[in-house]
């Protein structure tokens, strides 16, 4: 395997990177050359090399979002060669390795695009719309007390598994970035169905889905037309089944909640 070979040939690459000073200016694609990139590097480490080059030359480094660099925080939102997080399925950008590229490749790197995700600078986007949707979901009013014993609340394994699968959403926004409609339904559906499936989520079940969908619409995300790009690009494999659950939850809540607004 190329990845396990420390002597693999280093790569020389052309990068086409979106540069934009701030929210109020227009940006454009700028070409850069990076040389001697180890195939062992992650994509973000390759960008670190580019930024060191730029700093040495006295130029402004490329701003990009990252935090954990181990595939769990969902910060590393880059649109690489026309795909969210690049062409590898089931990977975040920080988990994408340079051995997936070839010497001499040209790589385009753009920020997530959506009206609800404005570009802060270069490749860094503001995803606080997701935080506001989560806030709109509110709290869970079960009394948690001290650390509960395992299996104190009986939940069938199939339900626990389904809720856990939904809970793995890392809030990265790849679903929005990939969607032709810039719809946030896969993200919202993962959050809604996770709690709707569990006994702890029952008390606020109706108001949660009503409020989260209202906030989603208010933030200006699009409406899902079941294209499926989101699930195909989701790094943790959140399934479209969740969107059907969201629609069911929404319909049931609207029909039976006490909320007259």
């Amino acid at each position, binding site marked *: 395997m190329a990845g396990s070979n420390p002597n693999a040939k280093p790569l020389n690459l052309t990068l086409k990177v979106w540069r934009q000073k701030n929210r109020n200016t227009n940006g454009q694609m700028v070409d850069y050359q990076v040389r001697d990139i180890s195939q062992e590097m992650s994509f973000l480490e390759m960008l670190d090399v580019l930024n060191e080059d730029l700093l040495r030359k006295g130029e402004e480094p490329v701003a990009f979002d990252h935090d954990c660099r181990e595939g769990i925080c969902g910060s590393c939102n880059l649109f690489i*060669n026309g795909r969210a997080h690049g062409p590898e399925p089931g990977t975040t950008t920080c988990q994408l390795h340079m051995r997936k590229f070839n010497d001499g490749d040209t790589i385009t790197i753009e920020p997530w695009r959506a009206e609800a995700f404005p570009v802060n600078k270069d490749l860094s986007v503001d995803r606080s719309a997701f935080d506001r949707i989560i806030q709109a979901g509110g709290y869970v009013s079960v009394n948690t007390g001290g650390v509960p014993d395992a299996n104190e609340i009986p939940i069938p394994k199939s339900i626990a598994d389904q809720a856990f699968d939904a809970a793995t959403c890392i809030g990265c926004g790849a679903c929005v970035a990939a969607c032709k409609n810039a719809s946030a339904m896969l993200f919202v559906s993962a959050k809604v169905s996770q709690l709707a499936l569990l006994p702890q989520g029952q008390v606020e079940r109706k108001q949660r889905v009503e409020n989260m969908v209202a906030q989603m*619409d208010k933030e200006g995300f699009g409406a899902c037309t*079941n294209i499926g790009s989101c699930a*195909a690009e989701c790094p943790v494999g959140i399934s479209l089944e969740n969107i059907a659950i969201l629609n069911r939850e929404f319909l049931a809540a609207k029909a039976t909640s006490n909320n007259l607004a």
Partner: protein
Amino acid sequence: MSWLSNALTSSIGRKIIMAVTGLFLCSFLVIHLIGNLQLFKNDGGQAFNVYSHFMGTNPVIRTIEWVLVAGFVFHIYESIMLTRRNKAARGPQGYVVNHNEQNSPWQSRNMGILGTIILIFLLIHLYNFFYRARFGDLDPDINNNDDLYTLVVSSFHQWWYVLLYVLAQIALAYHLIHGFKSAFQTLGLTHRKYTPFITYFGYAFSIIVCAGFAVMPLYFFFIK
């Protein structure tokens, strides 16, 4: 009732109207196809003219006709509202390089274009057959029914008309290959026992129904 209008104008509410009207239009397609099979009867069009006379005069059918009009109007209206919302959500700056053909089928991303082709076809089709049957002056056939059959035959002897029909049916087939299963997803009607069947049924439905419609102009152009 503001809760109801709020629900129906939310992103999910609009989709639900799309889905309900879309499935209703699918049921219309089945009736329309079965009725039109009268065209294949070798009786100089008498049976077809009896059928079209019934459809044009029966009070129950005439009432359902208005439901059908409403179905189309709402389906098209919601498609415009959703498309506008979704275009705005994408924002003014698109991707310089976007390979969404690698993550989704073409027809799923182009429902609006497919729908517009269907709409253009629909307007021409309505003018040519519906308008002239209902408001025009067709000659009577030997049973004294309006002779719509002769109009159908003469229309289907024009190559461009046949081509328009076949292209529109291809567009409709792609619209439904995505739309049929999509409507069930939108309505939340998914289940691991039934969804695979709905998916296959949707495929078969789209192809059989649209092929059935497309065969009619081809039959008259090439065979009759």
